[in-house]
């Protein structure tokens, strides 16, 4: 709860502007520092979430089964698949060095701030309004207080490994010719004190036994399969309005702000599986191929930022002291990496359990439990 609250405050720092709406013309003198502020905010948010964002899509698209594919059409299976990256957290990635973020003289922060998996409080970022002509900080003429706002940086989660856990149901249908299609779907909504979260994941895979074309053996112990898969997911978090992106001090306030955060990934993958059946119960495999991930962090909704008119009335009329901002966050990561790993599958009648390790950008572990329904002859 506290972490979310901190996020909210920091997000307000980031929100100061990306794109002005219609009343921007008279605020052009302030535009540079506002764009700088948004640049800083984006670079920080991207750095904070990097370990998660750069691996979640890869891990979500793992855990597809190896092992034998039913020969005939009509075989149906239902599985529950859990996947997670296991990212080593060390001294090199625990903290973000703020001197490597986007630099602007309007922001002052501590030299280090925790990354997403580091167990430490985030600290405070100070935002100072600057005089457009000199870039000097502005003060309240009455008491010399800087015209500024403080925003909390994000707290780290503090886990032994960086993880991106996800559990998703999967249904499989064999099409004949040792070909199987699989579908994964998971939509759910969570309502809690801080807001509403919608999570959805959708994707599928097709796998085909290649070795059947090269052997006349009916049930060979060794088989080779091709798997093509695609996964996408979206997370939307709509915080409760009065707790999120709202702050107020003697100089600024953000009443009327309404922001929804989103994270999306799209991942495509092509793999070859090399299976070897040790016994009726145990089958081993190795797999390798390539996987491509596109990860987008973004936001919808508007952020309304008001500066007390007495401090900027050289350029603003009273009605124009509010700035409305959209598209507060946007950052994209896109990467194609080789992937490879190994797995083991246990079969007990209609039940199967499978553990898989993959390396795709980082270590990824998967566990799958499968029940075979309408089990045609294998």
């Amino acid at each position, binding site marked *: 709860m506290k972490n979310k609250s901190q996020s909210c405050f920091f997000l307000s720092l980031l929100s100061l502007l990306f794109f002005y709406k219609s009343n921007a013309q008279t605020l052009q003198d302030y535009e540079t520092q506002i764009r700088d502020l948004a640049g800083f905010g984006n670079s920080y948010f991207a750095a904070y979430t990097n370990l998660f964002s750069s691996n979640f899509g890869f891990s979500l698209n793992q855990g597809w089964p190896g092992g034998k594919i039913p020969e005939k059409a009509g075989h149906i299976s239902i599985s*529950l698949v*859990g996947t*997670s990256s*296991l990212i080593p*957290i*060390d*001294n*090199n990635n*625990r*903290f973000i*060095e*703020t*001197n490597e973020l986007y*630099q602007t*003289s309007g922001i*002052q*922060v*501590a*030299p*280090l*701030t925790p990354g997403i998996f*580091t*167990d*430490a*409080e985030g*600290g*405070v970022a*100070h935002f100072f*309004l600057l*005089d457009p*002509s*000199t*870039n*000097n*900080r*502005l*003060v*309240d*003429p*009455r*008491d*010399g207080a800087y*015209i500024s706002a403080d925003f909390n*940086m994000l707290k780290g989660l*503090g*886990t*032994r*490994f960086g*993880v991106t*856990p996800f*559990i998703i149901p999967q249904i499989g249908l064999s099409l004949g010719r040792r070909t199987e299609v699989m579908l994964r779907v998971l939509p759910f909504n969570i309502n809690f004190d801080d807001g509403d979260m919608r999570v959805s994941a959708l994707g599928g895979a097709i796998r085909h036994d290649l070795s059947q074309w090269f052997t006349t053996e009916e049930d060979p112990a060794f088989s080779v399969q091709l798997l093509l898969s695609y996964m996408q997911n979206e997370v939307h978090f709509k915080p409760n309005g009065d707790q999120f992106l709202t702050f107020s001090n003697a100089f600024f306030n953000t009443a009327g702000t309404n922001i929804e955060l989103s994270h999306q990934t799209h991942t495509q993958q092509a793999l070859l599986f090399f299976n070897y059946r040790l016994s009726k119960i145990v089958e081993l495999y190795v797999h390798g191929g390539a996987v491509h991930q596109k990860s987008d962090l973004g936001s919808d909704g508007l952020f309304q930022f008001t500066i007390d008119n*007495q*401090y*900027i*009335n*050289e350029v603003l009329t009273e009605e124009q002291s509010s700035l409305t901002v959209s598209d507060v966050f946007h950052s994209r990561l896109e990467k194609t990496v080789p992937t490879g790993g190994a797995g083991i599958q246990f079969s007990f009648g209609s*039940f199967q359990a499978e553990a898989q390790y993959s390396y795709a950008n980082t270590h990824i*572990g998967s*566990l799958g*439990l499968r029940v075979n329904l309408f089990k045609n002859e294998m």
Partner: protein
Amino acid sequence: MKNSIGILILLFLFCGCEKNQKCDTLRYTFHLPSQLLADYPYVKLYQNQEDFYQGVNAITVEDSTNGLTFSTMGNNQFTPIWDIRRADGTSSWSDQQALAQLADHQVFFEECSVDVHYTDADALLQAISSSPIYTHLALPGLDQDGGSKTWEISRIFDEDSVEVTERPEWICIKSLVFTFYKGGKGGKIKIGTNNGQSPCGVYEELFNGMSEAYATYSLEGEDQRELRITAPAISDALKEQLTFHIASSSYEQLAISLTNADGQIGYATLTPLQDEE
């Protein structure tokens, strides 16, 4: 089946919830090249801006045998501010962002500590470039750690070197006193009036009914000789009146050129008032 589901869930709980130690406060050890001391005999570190302004709670060099070492505990509000000064008054006051860019951090999470290295000595020396005028404006002397200094305009001459100090067209600016606080570019300045006089002319806008007004100041231009006083939401006419060119400076006297409300150019000398804050 049930057992397997249990194991699956436990795996994620284990990975997701096991906590590391908490490092909200880190021990920072700063390592500066030893050749810095040859040119810059005054080197102090502050934990935050307020301490830096006032010159209190300074962290001094801990060890100078193999480079300069400074050590302090820093929480997540820690914003290191360097006060590095050369004998002529050149300082690091306005260069904090440039100095931060040169820092390389090496974290030791198990010890909750971090080593900060400034390995590029040339770049470090080059980054320390704030005009000595800043120290002249705000401090009584080079060894003063922090605080402020108040200046009054003692005499004004016109372009023909005729003294115009008491002329009506100069009396409004002559009545002002300026208190410069330590800070470098964007440092604070308090503007008041001499002997409780009421502000007059274009300066009434600045005071807005108050007896004193705060603003910030900076030295602009490549040679850092244009002294600009910056206040929010003021007219262009007042901005012009709050811009001066510094011809010469020392801890005891400033020689500036300025313009009055009629557009006449004057040359003024400023001297410190005795009662310092």
